[in-house]
């Protein structure tokens, strides 16, 4: 029985291995990246993971300064996030808090440029899928199948004329969907700037500044051991989390999936650290203790990858 199953699986795997990235699919992917950067639009989308769904509105105004975007959660408390090229403001009504993540150097926001898309073929096989209508748009499906177990796969539905991403699914190596974003309504074209104002109610809310600054963790004795294949360190900063003491953050990325490693001293934390792993959709969070510091690894990658990066964090006092 198990031999039959093995043979069956072998054929399936051999089939995957033979699949090749096509230039056409790569062009489509570039088109999606360009559309994300260039288009102005407003629309409603549904985020689904497990048996949970949440509806949000997204509005984007493209301009020479890198664009302004707003995300408004329409279910439950009206949470909002406003983003420009060098600042992210998160409005959380339940705690009457505004979290501000601002950097003096906008280059600190790592972006993948459309011309760098080709680099993704080292870790993903990028192929064309079916054509299908989503929210009234004729869409082309592009599939990114990972070449190893270290990352998830993606199915993307792009508007055939503009390249705008109408739907995105993240799937694990068994093909199970981990999470899904789907636009149910979308209008592409000019957007009035008033629609991107911060919420009026937020005046007088507590403001938490992230105070992002560049950092060099290896100088202070920290190391993250053998990196996962394809995941390169792209940013290393110091920042505040919840008005507490500074936390170090390193971000590793394969160009699409990103994993952050946070390191903070244990003393001074308001609550006891919880050691273990938790998941939400395609995001896994792994916490462990190293040399009286709390290490938190957050990534849009399989739990095993997030854990593997976390387990290589070491401290060597100098």
């Amino acid at each position, binding site marked *: 029985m198990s031999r039959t199953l*093995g*043979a069956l*699986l*072998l054929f399936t795997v051999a089939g995957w291995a033979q699949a090749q990235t096509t230039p056409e699919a790569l062009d489509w992917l570039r088109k999606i*990246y360009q559309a*994300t950067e260039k288009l102005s639009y407003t629309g409603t989308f549904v*985020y689904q993971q*497990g048996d*949970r769904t*949440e509806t*949000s509105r*997204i509005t*984007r105004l493209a301009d020479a300064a890198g664009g302004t975007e707003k*995300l408004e959660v329409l279910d439950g*408390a009206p*949470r909002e996030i406003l983003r420009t090229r060098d600042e992210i403001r*998160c409005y*959380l009504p339940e705690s009457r808090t505004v*979290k501000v*993540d601002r950097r003096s150097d906008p280059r600190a*926001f*790592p*972006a*993948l*440029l459309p011309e760098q898309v080709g680099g993704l073929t080292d870790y993903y096989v990028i192929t064309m899928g079916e054509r299908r209508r989503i929210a009234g748009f004729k869409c082309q499906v592009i599939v990114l199948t990972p070449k*190893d*177990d270290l990352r998830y796969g993606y199915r*993307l539905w792009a508007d055939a004329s503009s390249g705008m*991403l109408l739907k*995105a699914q993240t799937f*694990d*190596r*068994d093909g199970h969907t981990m999470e899904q*974003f789907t636009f149910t309504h979308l209008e592409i074209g000019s957007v009035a700037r008033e629609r991107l104002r911060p919420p009026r109610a937020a005046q007088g809310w507590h403001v938490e500044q992230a105070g992002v600054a560049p950092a060099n963790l290896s100088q202070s004795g920290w190391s993250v051991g*053998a990196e996962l294949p394809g995941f390169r360190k792209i*940013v290393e900063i110091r*920042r505040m989390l919840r008005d507490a003491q500074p*936390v170090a*953050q390193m*971000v590793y990325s394969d160009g699409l*999936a*990103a994993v*952050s490693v*946070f390191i903070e001293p244990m003393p001074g934390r308001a609550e*006891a650290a919880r*050691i*273990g792993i*938790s998941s*939400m*959709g395609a995001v896994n*969070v*792994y916490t462990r203790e*190293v040399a009286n510091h709390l290490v*938190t690894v*957050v990534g*849009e990658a*399989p*739990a*095993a990858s997030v*854990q593997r990066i976390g387990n290589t964090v070491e401290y060597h006092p100098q």
Partner: protein
Amino acid sequence: MKAKISALMDGELDAHELSEPMSALGQDADAFETWRTYHLISDALQGRAMLANDCLRRVSARLADEPTLIGPLPADVARPQRARWFVPSALAASVAAVALVGWMAFSPQQSTGPLLVPVAKAPQPAQVAARAAPPAPVRLPMTAATRDYLIAHQALSSRNSLQGMAPFVRSVAAESIPGKP
């Protein structure tokens, strides 16, 4: 030896002091029992979800039955043809292990907290494989305290260039989790 095991757990030993208690844990049943008891005490004190008493032995027994081929391929080793033969056997082996991990992920911890999100609905072979080496970490529910990390992470995620702001919805989704400020 008990003092050394305690120091080992607390991370107080230097690198050159590790080998003695580590080898004792492998060979001396009393030392191992001490290690287990101390962890049980620590888990109880810190209110962490505990695995069923006999879990360790049963997991070990099941692992002993597994073919040894499961496990991710080493990072730098090129994975040519050989790799393709490994994958199916790893998959097949994982089918058996999935039930075990599913049981571990769901049964003991689910009742301990307000689990908003079904954790690891479908345990993945990759996960199973990687866990064969280090002990499986405790499954925790996502809490509102995790939100700060999610926002900080999302702000720097390369996914934003592909999809714009939509993925940020994950970082504020935790706001409605009850029981946390």
